[in-house]
């Protein structure tokens, strides 16, 4: 049996995942008023930042090494080691500014975790972002938040203003001689801006068309300067790593994909919500215990474990599967953003897929032909199947269309649109066939 460790604070270590109920939250702890800097500081906030900036124990390499050792796998979906990403930054050159871009676009359907950080623990993120700027010798952090979160943008701005007043952001931070600024930027409703290079184009005041890579952001990022981009939650983990050590942090949850996780559980469950637990939770625990089971006593049909673009799982595939990259890979899906959508037995999977495809059709930026045209054809073909006008060969046509899109565009939106189609058609083929057979058009006339 896999051995998992989990712990709530430095002194508590449990030796198996069955004790998940005893987990003590660290990202979104139950402390009233934590969004206020006074309360945050009273509860040990900004200690990590103070330590990094003033104790003399931390140089930039040490911070990066610590974060790398913790193996914070990016929480925005790709799951890349954040510390390793940081180490890709070229050596600092005088007079050449460098930037941190903080990705709060959070537009992957099913994802709603960063919203809770903006509302309940914004200073944890700010602290992490400023430490990241220190480690990578950056001049400013740009926090890009989706425009729909207008209220949360105001909360974030208020938190940034407080941190400026206390001298945690701005000129000569805590007398260290380092100057780092932080600016909040409001988006205006475009899924594509969550893509890293697209977010940079958007910040530069252009239409947010993703850029071809290479050059990667570390070489040519915001305004052509070296830039690193991280998800909001990823940066919120940084102070925890600095304060308690990489060893502590990486002992939480699944060994190869460690750390606390914000699970956004939505859909047909009794108790949807954003829950903080260690990584590597059993999907069945999350659905039946944390989220209180399927509502109205229905049976489970399917789970989309990490946002709309990750491959869907049938109920019979869940046995023993945990929320970490390795375990999910065995059933051909990913952690993504850990925004789980739970679907009950009454779900019309064809209609569900139409709506998901319609989303990608709407959000494709239109730069690359396979994506611009392909996403539209997904909707057309699926609608015709749903309307009883489909033919069996349409299912092969859908899969063929996936082939022409995956990996053939500048960014991963085409892949994100094709994965749900490919996997839903394969894993729920009988439901598509049923709709086609009912139409009676079995042979191309």
């Amino acid at each position, binding site marked *: 049996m896999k051995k998992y460790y989990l712990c709530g604070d430095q002194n508590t270590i449990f030796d198996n995942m069955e004790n998940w109920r005893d987990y003590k939250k660290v990202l979104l702890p139950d402390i009233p008023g934590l969004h206020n800097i006074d309360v945050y500081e009273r509860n040990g906030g900004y200690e990590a930042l103070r330590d990094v900036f003033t104790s003399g124990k931390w140089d930039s390499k040490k911070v990066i090494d610590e974060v790398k050792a913790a193996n914070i796998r990016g929480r925005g979906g790709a799951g890349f080691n954040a510390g390793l990403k940081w180490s890709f930054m070229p050596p600092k050159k005088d007079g050449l500014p460098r930037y941190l871009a903080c990705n709060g676009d959070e*537009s992957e359907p099913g994802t709603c975790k960063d919203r809770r950080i903006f509302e309940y623990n914004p200073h944890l993120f700010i602290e992490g972002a400023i430490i990241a700027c220190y480690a990578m010798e950056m001049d400013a952090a740009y926090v890009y938040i989706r425009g*729909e979160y*207008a209220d949360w943008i105001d909360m974030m701005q208020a938190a940034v203003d407080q941190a400026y007043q206390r001298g945690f952001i701005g000129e000569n931070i805590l007398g260290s001689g380092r100057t780092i600024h932080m600016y909040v930027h409001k988006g205006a409703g475009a899924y594509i801006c969550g893509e890293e290079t697209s977010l940079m184009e958007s910040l530069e005041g252009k239409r947010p068309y993703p850029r071809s890579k290479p050059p990667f952001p570390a070489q040519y990022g915001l*305004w052509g300067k070296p830039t690193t981009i991280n998800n909001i939650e990823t940066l919120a983990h940084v102070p925890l790593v600095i304060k308690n050590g990489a060893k502590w942090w990486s002992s939480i949850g699944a060994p190869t994909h460690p750390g606390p996780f914000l699970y956004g559980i939505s859909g047909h469950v009794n*108790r949807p919500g954003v829950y903080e637990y260690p990584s590597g939770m059993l999907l069945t625990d999350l659905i039946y215990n944390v989220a*209180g089971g399927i509502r109205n006593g229905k049976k489970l049909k399917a789970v989309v474990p990490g946002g*709309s673009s990750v491959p869907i799982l049938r109920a019979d595939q869940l046995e023993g599967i945990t929320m970490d990259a390795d375990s999910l890979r065995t059933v051909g899906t990913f952690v993504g953003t850990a925004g789980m*959508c739970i679907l009950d037995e009454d779900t019309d999977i064809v209609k569900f897929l139409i709506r998901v495809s319609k989303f990608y059709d709407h959000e494709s930026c239109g730069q690359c032909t396979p994506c611009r045209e392909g996403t539209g054809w997904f909707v057309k073909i699926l609608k015709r199947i749903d309307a009883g006008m489909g033919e069996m060969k349409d299912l092969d046509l859908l899969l063929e269309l996936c082939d022409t899109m995956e990996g053939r565009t500048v960014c991963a939106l085409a892949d994100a649109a094709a994965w749900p189609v490919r996997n839903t058609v394969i894993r729920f083929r009988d439901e598509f066939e049923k709709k086609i057979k009912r139409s009676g058009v079995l042979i191309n006339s």
Partner: protein
Amino acid sequence: MEYTFTQAEVQEIQKHVAKYPDRHSAIMPALWIAQEKFGWLSADAIKLVADTLDVPYARVYGVATFYTMYLKQDCPPNLIEVCTCFTCGECGGKERMAFLKDYLQTNEKGRSADGQFWIREAECLGACDTAPVGQISNRRFVHNLTDEKLRETIERLRRGEVLSFEAIPLNDQTPLG
């Protein structure tokens, strides 16, 4: 209608310009300010932003037309958007949308006859844990929508009330299973 910014608004825009190494980056914040002032982004409003920032009109127009939240047509006092995407779509968003159309008797463009409401289907609003959700005039979220809650919200908007922020508590206090 005359399209000008007040001194205070120009200063506000200049504050945004100062945040970035390049003034083009202030196009988005300036468009937000213009939309807030004029209600929507007409060609004249876009021209005003371009002139204020001293950037080409085409550049600003390109940005304004890309994003869903920049309104390119005349917007009535209340814009109601209901998410029908992904989780919300499966948890009643589509039904709420149908209810709205019926309740407000909107035309094919989603406009109500009294000129007070405009309804739109939204793509994921990022509040899947409280599905279905709606958003009022690009700001307030209305969580866990029901027909009753929509009716009540519409009545409040008709009375000219300002909706308050609906905080969703972080933790569910019911014991875990």
